[in-house]
């Protein structure tokens, strides 16, 4: 049931200049060209915990520039798959290619450095750091993170910090957290934490963001806001892989949806195809 033909729709074509305005500064990824390369391609992933095979021969690919959905009933192995892709858990078997290079041997932090950032199902923030510090941490290639350079390159570090602060403020503004800049991140509400997590991911200038249930436990207005942000960022060239149970979100955002059930690939296709797929309906609703 795995669809081998590349996905046709290209979200970049409909870029309107006004939309991406507030993020113009933070955009680093090249606009995806018209060739829909798989940015992420995993094949034959296997992971078992004791006797339980949580992920069994799962393959998935994410087209560059797309918003790809990942759905499935509870316990289908979605979050485990995220952990395998980002190597927070090492797969027993299988290959993961990111941007054309194998990454399944790399450490999770190296994968993040290459531009694949994951978020967590239950949003995680650095509680006793300010919202701004949470954002600043995400910036990549910081001179000041090298122990010895903090002694010798103080001017350069100060300049970088100023620049990153501006970027962080732009992003915080765009996710509506600007008024919380100097609060402890631990003081944020659940929905705000989700937003901060996404903003933090964006701050690292990734190519691909793996979002684990961005709309879970978030009120409808905020869900709309989150979807809005995802679409804007996508138009700016960011690729997304999204786990979500909220079908409205999946239908309105995704170009293509992968379905997992009981640790296996069940289906893949456009949202409408998936919605009418008998097997998928059976998996969700039961026999």
């Amino acid at each position, binding site marked *: 049931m795995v669809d081998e033909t590349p996905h046709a729709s290209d979200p970049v074509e409909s870029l309107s200049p006004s939309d991406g305005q507030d993020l113009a500064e933070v955009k680093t990824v090249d606009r995806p060209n018209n060739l829909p390369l798989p940015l992420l391609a995993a094949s034959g992933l296997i992971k078992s915990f004791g006797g339980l095979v949580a992920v069994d021969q799962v393959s998935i690919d994410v087209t560059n520039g797309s918003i790809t959905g990942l759905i499935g009933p509870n316990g289908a192995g979605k979050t485990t798959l995220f952990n395998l892709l980002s190597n927070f858990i090492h797969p027993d078997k299988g290959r993961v290619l990111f941007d054309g290079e194998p990454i399944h041997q790399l450490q*999770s*932090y190296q994968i*993040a450095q290459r531009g694949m*950032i994951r978020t967590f199902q239950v949003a*995680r923030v650095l*509680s006793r750091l*300010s919202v701004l510090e949470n954002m*600043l941490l995400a910036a990549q290639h910081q001179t000041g*993170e090298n122990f010895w350079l903090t002694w010798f390159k103080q001017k350069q570090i100060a300049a970088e910090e100023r620049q990153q602060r501006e970027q962080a403020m732009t992003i915080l503004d765009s996710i509506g957290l600007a008024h919380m800049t100097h609060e402890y991140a631990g003081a944020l509400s659940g929905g705000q934490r989700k937003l901060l997590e996404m903003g*933090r991911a964006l701050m690292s200038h990734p190519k691909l963001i793996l979002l684990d249930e961005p709309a879970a436990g978030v009120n409808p207005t905020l869900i709309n806001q989150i979807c809005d942000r995802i679409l804007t960022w996508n138009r700016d060239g960011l690729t997304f892989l999204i786990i979500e149970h909220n079908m409205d979100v999946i239908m309105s955002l995704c170009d293509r949806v992968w379905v997992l059930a009981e640790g296996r690939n069940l289906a893949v296709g456009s949202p409408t195809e998936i919605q009418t797929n008998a097997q998928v309906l059976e998996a969700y609703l039961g026999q």
Partner: protein
Amino acid sequence: MLDFSGILLFFTPGYLVSLIIFTATFALFSLGLNLQWGFTGLINFGHIAFMTVGAYTTVLLSMKGVPLVLAVLIGAMLAAGLGLLIGLSTLRLREDYLAIVTIGVSEIIRLIALNEEWLTQGSRGVYSYPLPLEALTRPTLISKLGMIGIWTAIFALAGWQLWRWTWQRRDRLGQDTREGTQPGQIGKLTLSVATAILGLLLYWAGAVSLYDYSYKAGLMLVLVTVLALVYWRLEALVRSPWGRVLKAIREDEEIAKALGKNVFWYKLQSLMLGGAIAGIAGAFYAWQLSFINPDGFIPLITFQAWTIVVLGGAGNNAGTLLGAAIFWAYNSVTRFLLPAIAPALHAIVPAIPPTLDEGRAGAFRIMIIGLLLIVLMMARPQGILGKKEELSLGR
């Protein structure tokens, strides 16, 4: 009749100099622990191991004729190397395992020092080793004034920092602390005034003893200078992006990993740097005692450092200095005060003997410090300089 004459000894420059040396050594030692635990969240119950390595390396090398500065640096490097070893073998494990392994390592190091007699002379200990500024027995007036100048400069800098801290309008997160938190401001002011008075007393004692030069005064100056330098560098480091990564690891290392930080390497760096600082503290520990044997490096010392860090507020370098000062001030005051008031205590509680011998008095003082810690943790669980609001945050 109460006899308080012993307390007057407390205010003689000679005694205050010894007190400054003890306090500064432990402040240095605890700053290393504060970096590891307060900033990085590494539970190190074997901090004394680094001090042992630093002390023995410095002393043994200098007895072989290695210049003192070089010997201290090698000691610090070996202590950092020990940190690397502990880290490589345990940091991948969970936090509680790290705690157990570190306490084990500290005992292993002490037992090596006890049993490898060819190297350390075991329990007989090492003595008559070279001390810093030993040759300087009768300094000229000019060098005395120079030393007093350095002493003054350090205290002036500290005073300036205290002044800025007292009157700063914004806290670390950039929020106005003056508005609406008047009680906080009054507490801050009281603390500042008390610190300033104590500082002036110590400055006077130090300046007087530098003028009537003795070996201890010279050691005190070197030590306080090193402490000031380490403090200054640590403050710069924890405010840098490097320190931000450490704090992120303390909060949630999975986030740091997910954002591309090499968590393992940063933990190692923290453990090694904290170890190196403790190694330097070890050198001063050996110099002030002028005799070391393994009995001086028992696990209790580690927990004294923990007391100091918790007292001051974890993750706060200034708090660690304050914690060390309070710890040693308490230690010394009660040493004189307790025998003086023992008869009065005996009148109230007959179970307390009218004359306390040294062993009993010592045990009693430790009991009281435990009690004080419990009271502090109930009244101010964040430590003296910690931030209360940080405790109410969810993860």
